[in-house]
């Protein structure tokens, strides 16, 4: 992968610091909110950024950009396929389009447009989809994407990123402006704890060890990263040492970090708010089975659709809890 130098400047270090402080003080922030605010800030500095939405700008938070830069915001109405094609055209003509809607519509309804009009010609389009996973909550299965990572990951040339918190989201969006090529970024509706601090530096394809450990490695993405940290606490109290790894770039995945974890802990658990088929768990299994097979277990949605309900309650129903991750860890440790 080549990182192209970008001629457009990014915010000054001071401004960035002040902004990160705001996020840290918030303690809990939805990654979609971090996306919307970051986009609006970057829009001031980089005039090539244009934003498209499909009648969900209030929910995806692109409305913040729209309010500041109405001439560079294009509401495409309820027409996701057309939105992806229009974004491709804008990119071909030199703009840096961010196209946003709910994850299920961005990756499901418009999958073929993403493949044909964006990925195949390697158009510089940033698809940032919100309301991924079951934490959409009350809207139910029709709006809960549990397949998006899988269907984006399979497309050649596509980079797939799932930020873990507001700060990582901000760093990811900045990197998206710099990087030339198609990217899918998955953000969430609900608030989640802030994990990173200002010192964190995001690099495409690089995972982060958030906590050292030797008995098992828990590899997580998105809102499951903080759950993985809690799981490590539970395991710690039982005398089990768990490493926690944030893999925000699902593709291209950080093979070295995963293989190192497998070699050093000999037991792997993955955790994601996505189907266990085709997502982070599958990507990690692909790396392990071809390079360093060790006992592993995937925590995720077990080949089921979502359902309506309070987001926290749904996380319990679908087993996306620290307790369930800890249970999976105990199992793989036994299988060593």
């Amino acid at each position, binding site marked *: 992968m080549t990182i192209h130098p970008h001629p457009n400047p990014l915010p000054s270090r001071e401004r960035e610091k002040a902004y990160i402080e705001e996020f840290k003080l918030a303690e809990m922030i939805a990654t979609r909110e971090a996306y919307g605010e970051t986009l609006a800030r970057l829009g001031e500095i980089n005039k090539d950024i244009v934003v498209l939405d499909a009648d969900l700008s209030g929910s995806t938070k692109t409305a913040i950009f729209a309010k500041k830069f109405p001439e560079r915001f294009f509401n495409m109405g309820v027409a996701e396929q057309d939105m992806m094609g229009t974004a491709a055209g804008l990119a071909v*003509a030199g703009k840096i389009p961010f196209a946003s809607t709910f994850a299920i519509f961005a990756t499901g309804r418009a999958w073929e447009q993403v493949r044909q009009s964006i990925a*195949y010609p390697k158009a510089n389009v940033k698809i940032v989809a919100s309301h991924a996973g079951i934490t959409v909550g009350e809207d139910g299965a029709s709006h809960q994407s549990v397949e998006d990572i899988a269907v984006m990951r399979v497309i050649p040339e596509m980079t797939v990123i799932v930020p873990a918190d507001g700060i990582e989201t901000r760093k990811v969006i900045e990197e998206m402006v710099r990087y030339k090529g198609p990217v899918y970024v998955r953000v969430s509706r609900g608030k989640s704890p802030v994990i990173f601090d200002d010192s964190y530096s995001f690099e495409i394809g690089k995972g982060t060890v958030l906590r050292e450990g030797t008995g098992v490695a828990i590899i997580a993405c998105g809102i499951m990263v903080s759950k993985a940290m809690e799981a490590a606490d539970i395991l710690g109290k039982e005398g089990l040492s768990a490493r926690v790894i944030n893999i925000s770039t699902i593709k291209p995945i950080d093979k070295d970090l995963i293989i190192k974890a497998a070699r050093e802990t000999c037991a792997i658990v993955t955790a994601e708010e996505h189907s266990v088929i085709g997502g982070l768990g599958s990507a990690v299994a692909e790396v392990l089975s071809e390079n360093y097979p060790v006992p592993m277990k995937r925590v995720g949605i077990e080949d089921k659709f979502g359902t309506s309900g309070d987001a926290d309650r749904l996380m319990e129903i679908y087993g996306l809890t620290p307790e369930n991750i800890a249970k999976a860890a105990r199992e793989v440790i036994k299988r060593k």
Partner: protein
Amino acid sequence: MTEAAQLKEIARNLRIDILRMLHKAKSGHTGGSLSCIDILTTLYFSKMRYRIDDPAWPDRDRFILSKGHAAPALYAVLARIGYCSNEDLMTLRQAGSKLQGHPDCKAIAGIEVSTGSLGQGLSMANGISLALKLDKKQSRVYCLLGDGECQEGQVWEAAMTAAHYRLDNLCAIVDNNGLQIDGAVKDVKGIEPLPEKWKAFGWNVITADGHDFDSLLSAFGKAEEVKAQPTMIVARTVKGKGVSVFEGKAKYHGVPPSDEELAVALKELGANIK
């Protein structure tokens, strides 16, 4: 010679190139390449501004072949301009060729976007038109669709977008040859009344004879004068136009000329047979 007569002569030669490359490739889309070549000829050799030595010239006019299966027509034009070579034409659809079965913008300078999956070109043309307007460029964007392609829902999403954003730098053309793979468009799934449909979607609509250069030149000229509205030229065409054995036959949608058919075609087109 009048401009129309000059264009007619260019189109005659391009038809010969199309048939030779399809015959060599032993696969590809004959009917739709021949039905749209007069439209491409008018655009590339009369209307459009571009630089032969600089395909990426920022002020160029853009052409999007939304009906990507008519790639041989586009390749013949690009070879005549010099964006690819005549030798390249004879590699159509072969492994390692720049001339993919459907246009690949990464392979040849002068191809603006990759197409082939029907229904997607107009959205991309809209995106380019929006960007050109943001940049205050005078360039125009042309997008050619098939009539069967108008069965794709995305075409009508894009139709609404172009009208909503008043893209008067955009001119789309429907190659209205009335035939698609499975037969007549009216039998497969009717799309008429086409001009009225586009009108209802907020477009300035012009009907033209897609094989009459005066008619096409006049239509493109009128399109340039329209403000605050995109223009759709419904070009009535004949599938396989120019060669008696292919004309008006759905069968030749995706069938290349046989040895015998090529011989007949080259004779009818007055080609020098080597």
